[in-house]
């Protein structure tokens, strides 16, 4: 199948095995630029594994991943980030003993190009690049209401702000595709509400496509334009939130008796 230039992300017949265990099989779906797509399914369905495959943490046993018509297969994780895919983690992974500002500036690494000698000698290239990156990072912190915490250690932030910092760090690269792994996990309803608004704002403002893993059905149904449902490593349904709500297989496998 040829990559369709209209699509931003194309995942085709993706599969991976861990030892004897087939974690994903025949996973096929695509995303358009600027779209918000939900990736849902019960625990252990393989959602996080999809993220790890897209970002090159794992290599697929089968299938292909294309971004803007270019294959990501075999590419290194940091190169995939540079091609425009950024992510957050299900279990927050911040640079705990770095400041909030530095957490974001680490990810702005590729927007600077001075070499170690210029940095060590504090030559003009250092000041120019750092001023630019710091400015950019501060603007990002501003969007996520983290400005006043810029000089604090990331580990000192409360949980909800750590989640927001992770998103700020991911967005500093101006990605085309943002992968959010359970961003609302552990948040209270008010925080979740605010997060929802932020995610929408981020999409509108940056035009970034968002692939969202989330268990909070209100959040998912509220902001996703389309859903992909995984169960036991396979795609069991794709469609709009309304279609998914009606889908018998989904209701049986996942939504079960729980209120939607």
């Amino acid at each position, binding site marked *: 199948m040829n990559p369709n230039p209209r699509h931003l992300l194309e995942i085709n017949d993706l599969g991976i095995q861990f030892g004897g265990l087939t974690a994903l099989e025949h996973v096929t779906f695509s995303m358009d630029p600027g779209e918000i797509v939900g990736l849902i399914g019960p625990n252990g369905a393989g959602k996080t594994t999809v993220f790890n495959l897209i*970002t090159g*943490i794992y290599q697929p046993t089968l299938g292909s991943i294309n971004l803007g018509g270019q294959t990501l297969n075999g590419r*290194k*994780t*940091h190169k995939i*980030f*540079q091609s425009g895919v*950024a*992510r957050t*983690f299900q279990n927050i*992974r*911040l*640079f*705990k*003993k*770095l400041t909030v500002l*530095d957490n974001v*500036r*680490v*990810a702005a*690494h*590729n927007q*600077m190009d*001075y070499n*170690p000698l210029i*940095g*060590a*000698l*504090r030559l003009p290239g*250092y000041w120019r*690049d*750092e001023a630019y*990156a710091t400015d950019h990072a501060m603007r990002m912190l501003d969007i996520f209401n983290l400005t006043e915490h810029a000089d604090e250690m990331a580990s000192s932030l409360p949980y909800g702000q750590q989640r927001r910092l992770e998103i700020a*760090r*991911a967005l500093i*690269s101006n990605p085309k595709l943002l992968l959010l792994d359970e961003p609302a996990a552990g948040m209270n309803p008010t925080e979740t509400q605010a997060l929802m608004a932020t995610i929408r704002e981020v999409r509108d403002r940056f035009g970034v496509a968002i692939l969202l893993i989330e268990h909070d059905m209100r959040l998912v149904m509220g902001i996703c334009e389309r859903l992909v449902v995984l169960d036991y490593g396979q795609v069991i349904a794709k469609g709009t939130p309304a279609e998914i709500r009606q889908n018998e297989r989904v209701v049986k496998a996942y939504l079960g008796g729980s209120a939607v």
Partner: protein
Amino acid sequence: MNAATRKSWILNAIALAALSAAFLLPIQSGAVNAYIVGLLITALINIIMATSLNLVCGLLGYLALGHAAFMGVGAYAAALVSIHWNVPLSFPLALLVGGIAAAITGVVIGVPALRLRGDYLAIITLGFGEIVRIIMNNMPILGGARSLRGIPRITTVPVAYVAVIICVTLMFTLGRSRHGRAILSIREDEVAATSSGVPVTYYKILAFTLAAFFAGIAGGLYAHYMGVLNPNRFNFDRSIEYLVMVVLGGMGSITGAIIAAIVLTLLPELLRGLSNYRMLIYSLALILMMLFRPDGLLGTAEFSLVSIGRSFKRTRRSAQNEGRDHSES
């Protein structure tokens, strides 16, 4: 640079100048005997060794057990330049050649060792240190076990002092650049670092190579202080000594490494009678540190006059608050 940072820089620069004067003037005037001069030079060289090892153990977070070997490579390379090529300015050149020779060795060891995951670096650097020592013992051009002699004795206290200032400043500014941040991010979380666009293998090798480079400079200083080189000076025990300095000083803290380097150079001299138990005491100190202060004495914090002033104010304020509490009750 904001006002607080500028104030901190200026204050620390003034303190450094005062310290330098207090330190160098008596020595220049010849008021200090040769024994003390020797100790001071050793302490200064150890500062470069500890702060450079800190790049790998503190900033990158990897255990390296062969740092003395890089010092040895630098020492011999610099010595050979001085012995065989005596031109004006050959001393700084010799030091630079020593640093570069050690850095090249660092790349040769680092590339295979750091591409592997996990703690292979500790094991590989351990083996490498011994291999280097054995090679040095068996190379005729290096004098072998009979030592390399006739190296001009150029390293004085002021020379070593200037070298320390330059090296430590460069390591400090490197640590606070995009490269330093990238290295720190690997220590903090390698998966998050690579997912944030940091080419982790490159930065691991860079940290390791820079550490080797500065150790090579320290080696060159050492060679031109001693005038004689023996391979066994660069053995495993020495590597452990430098490691102890970094661990005691607080992994990631340059000032902590400096203080630990000074203390651990002077302390054994004060406790001469215990010299047989030196390694035992180091091991004990390491174990106690790991139990009670796993982040080292200073942790990752840097020692600065402004922060001392700040903590002093804080203590005073809390003391005042306490007083107020009492008066209210």
